[in-house]
């Protein structure tokens, strides 16, 4: 359906905000309770208008006001920023020093363009079900690491509308992290580093007596999760080492020049040898050249290769600062018209970016449905394929709200 993925018109966007956008659910998710708190009223929302004018420091007192203003401005998209010490819309009236960010969800952004060096199916802004495999792996590793190591529980994964995915963490402890702490957390999770001109992008082993030692426990755990996907995704599906530029990159990561020379000769003469076979060639060459006792350095090099090709590639700058703005869930991607829907990390592999509803499609569904009589006060999104996604956000928000409620009960000891 190529007509579906066209740039949505302003009329379409307005109808979407009026009838479909789940302002209430987004409010509950940001606010953690029913009555507006500072988490919502002191929160920056920034709009990108139809003429690409960027309007920063908006804030609202209620979900209704939020909806009204959004419909009045009819932006192409809007972004969510931090909770400040004062209402962002009063920014000009408070002393500059008295206006600072205090709370913010911990956010992550993974973008497919960071995989351009390794994916073989698409490049740039394109994405298909096949390269989504990399995102799937990244989500599982990151989701597990954050839950187990940092102990956060309220994670919301959101499709970015085109070629990436966002993660919003709303745990109380995560909301109040300082920029320094965020930076440390990101450094802890970052494995792929070094620019375009650096071949070996994985350098995470602590040095013991001048030699790289075993992997830190967190990364060892990730590696255990990544060995399977490396075979399925990198060797089989993407076939990363079939073409010359692919296997040349691989050979640059092997620290034994003799093996490299041999394999280079072999692979150059047999064009089109699949990645699987090349990987076996490498394995055979290593077992032939090293006895099991002194194979450790090679084993480490191989582990680092697996990490380089599959470990999540995070856009670090997004996560490091409380005042970084990130596109709100359920916005419409201005280029593709697709909705930024929440995702279930458990079922990430079933997700197909091409099947995400577009704004045009949803309004079509709505027109077809409204011929039937409506009962009571239901939101219009309930009649469209947006429903399961809104339900997901609702459920997530309920989880956050129950934490606040429990805290209130335990702290309220007045009888």
């Amino acid at each position, binding site marked *: 359906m190529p007509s579906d993925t066209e740039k949505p018109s302003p009329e379409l966007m307005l109808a979407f905000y009026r009838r479909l956008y789940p302002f209430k659910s987004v409010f509950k998710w940001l606010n953690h309770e029913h009555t507006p708190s500072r988490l919502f009223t002191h929160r920056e929302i920034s709009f990108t208008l139809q003429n690409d004018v960027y309007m920063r420091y908006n804030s609202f007192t209620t979900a209704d006001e939020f909806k009204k203003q959004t419909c009045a401005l009819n932006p192409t998209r809007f972004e969510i920023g931090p909770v400040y010490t004062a209402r962002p819309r009063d920014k000009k009236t408070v002393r500059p020093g008295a206006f600072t960010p205090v709370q913010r969800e911990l956010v992550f952004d993974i973008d497919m*363009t960071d995989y351009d060096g390794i994916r073989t199916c698409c490049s740039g802004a394109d994405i298909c079900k096949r390269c989504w495999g990399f995102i799937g792996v990244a989500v599982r590793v990151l989701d597990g690491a954050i839950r187990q190591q940092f*102990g956060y529980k309220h994670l919301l994964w959101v499709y970015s509308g085109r070629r990436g995915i966002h993660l919003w963490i709303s745990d109380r402890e995560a909301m109040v992290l300082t920029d320094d702490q965020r930076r440390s957390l990101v*450094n802890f999770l970052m494995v792929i580093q*070094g*620019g375009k001109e650096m071949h070996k992008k994985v350098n*995470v082993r602590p040095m013991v007596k001048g030699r790289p030692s075993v992997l*830190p426990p967190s990364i060892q755990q990730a590696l255990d999760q990544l060995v399977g996907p490396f075979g399925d995704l990198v060797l089989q599906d993407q076939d990363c080492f079939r073409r010359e530029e692919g296997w040349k990159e691989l050979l*640059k990561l092997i620290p034994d020049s003799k093996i490299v020379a041999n394999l280079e000769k072999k692979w150059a003469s047999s064009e089109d040898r699949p990645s699987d076979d090349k990987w076996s060639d490498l394995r055979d060459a290593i077992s032939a050249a090293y006895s099991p006792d002194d194979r450790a350095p090679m084993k480490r090099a191989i582990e680092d290769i697996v990490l380089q090709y599959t470990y999540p*590639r995070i856009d670090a700058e997004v996560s490091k600062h409380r005042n970084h703005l990130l596109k709100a869930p359920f916005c419409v991607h201005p280029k593709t018209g697709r909705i930024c829907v929440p995702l279930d990390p458990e079922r990430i592999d079933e997700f197909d970016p091409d099947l995400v509803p577009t704004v045009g499609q949803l309004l079509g569904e709505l027109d077809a449905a409204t011929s039937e009589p409506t009962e009571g006060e239901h939101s219009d999104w309930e009649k469209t394929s947006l429903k399961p996604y809104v339900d997901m956000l609702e459920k997530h928000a309920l989880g956050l709200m129950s934490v606040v409620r429990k805290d209130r009960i335990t702290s309220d000891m007045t009888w």
Partner: protein
Amino acid sequence: MLKSSRKPDGEVRVHFGLKYPRRLSLYDRPPTEDITLEEFESCAIDRLHVLCEIESCYARNRPFEELKDITKSQCDKHVPLDHNTATTKDRDSQRRKDVTGHFVLRLAFCRSEELRRRFVKAETTLFRVRYLESSHSERADFHQSVDFDWTPVEESEKEMYKSQLKAAGPDADEKEQYFKVKWTNVPDLVAKRKVFLKDGWAYVPSKEQPSIVFQEFQTRLEQALEMTAKALPRMDEDTRLEPILANLSQGFIAGLGSEWSTNENTGEDIRAEMVDELAQKHFPMCMRNLHENLTRNHHLKHFGRLQYGLFLKVLGVSIDEALIFWRKSFSGHTDDQFNKHYKYNIRHQYGLEGRRANYTAKSCQQILMNDQPGASDSHGCPYRHFSPDNLRTALLTTYSSQGLTEADLPEIMNTVRAEAYHVACTRVYEITHARDNVRKGDGIGSGETVTHPNQYAAASRALERASTGGGKVESDGDIVMN
């Protein structure tokens, strides 16, 4: 609150033992006794000497060992602080001076975010130096006195996570003691993956215990300074203090001036079309790389634009010329795209948008340490962020016309391997300026090493001016070289 002259000794002295029982302090209780105005100022100024010296050590990139020695000698001179064993010294009045000086400086440096940040950094370093030279028993006594919120890890739990604990700190032995703290209390250990994390708890080996202490010191001081900043307006009525405090914060600011912020005033403006030629002749490798990338791809990513744009600004390219330069370079974009996506960004660098800050160009240290290049970025320091073979090729293609040969590479690559990136860059400068009679060890003038890309370019242009000013020197040099 403040009374004039009274003998500093006397009523504060408790006869049995010391009023300040410990040498180390988290400065959680302000001094309450009366002091003279003179003492108020002199305590602070003495401490300020030490803090300024610490700041300048950071600015000069001195290794921690050197910094420690310098700090110690400064302390002995200005604010001596003896161990409890030094019974012949008046430890109480030393400690009183230490505490007083600290609290007076808090008042002076809580006013702005920038001052607070610098004060915290210098104070934390001072604390660190003092902590590290304390004896084991002194430290244990200090740990006892503060509620650090750490729990020892039980043997059974240690056994359960044995392999993970071992992998997180491979040089630890079996008997290592571990403490459990919230990970947010040890962000630096987390950032370096030196601890095992589980459910938000960091398992810190006892040898890393100082890390927790330093972090605690820093966090408490940061919070205290913010509190002080809020309370400060209520103190302004005491007009005697205001000028002293203002004077103190001035002193701190003036103590440090190593930022390369002024435009090189050479009397001539650099026009957009001159950048290419200047790049070939005068730019260090990082800027050459950005320039090549920009010419080749007609685009640079955000941090690339930032690093290169600010460099050009300080080099002397005016905003109008900068816009022309970037517009020409981004030839694949329409005027509309350029105006929408990049113009703001460039004007921002010149302080014409947003915060309107006068941004300075990034120093080598910032380029090396901050904003690590991602997988498709081209900013950063080539000596650090290129793989060795790419660096070799890049150096040869970039600088061979200026006299760098294959034979020079082993030496450069060795320096890179030793992680002395400044030195490698300085060596390349010496080689490429050999025809201007720069010899090995001369650096960019009187033996100085490169610490800022603009300093590299400035030195190179100054050499050229000197030689063209001197008439035929350059062409003569060329003939000799060939």
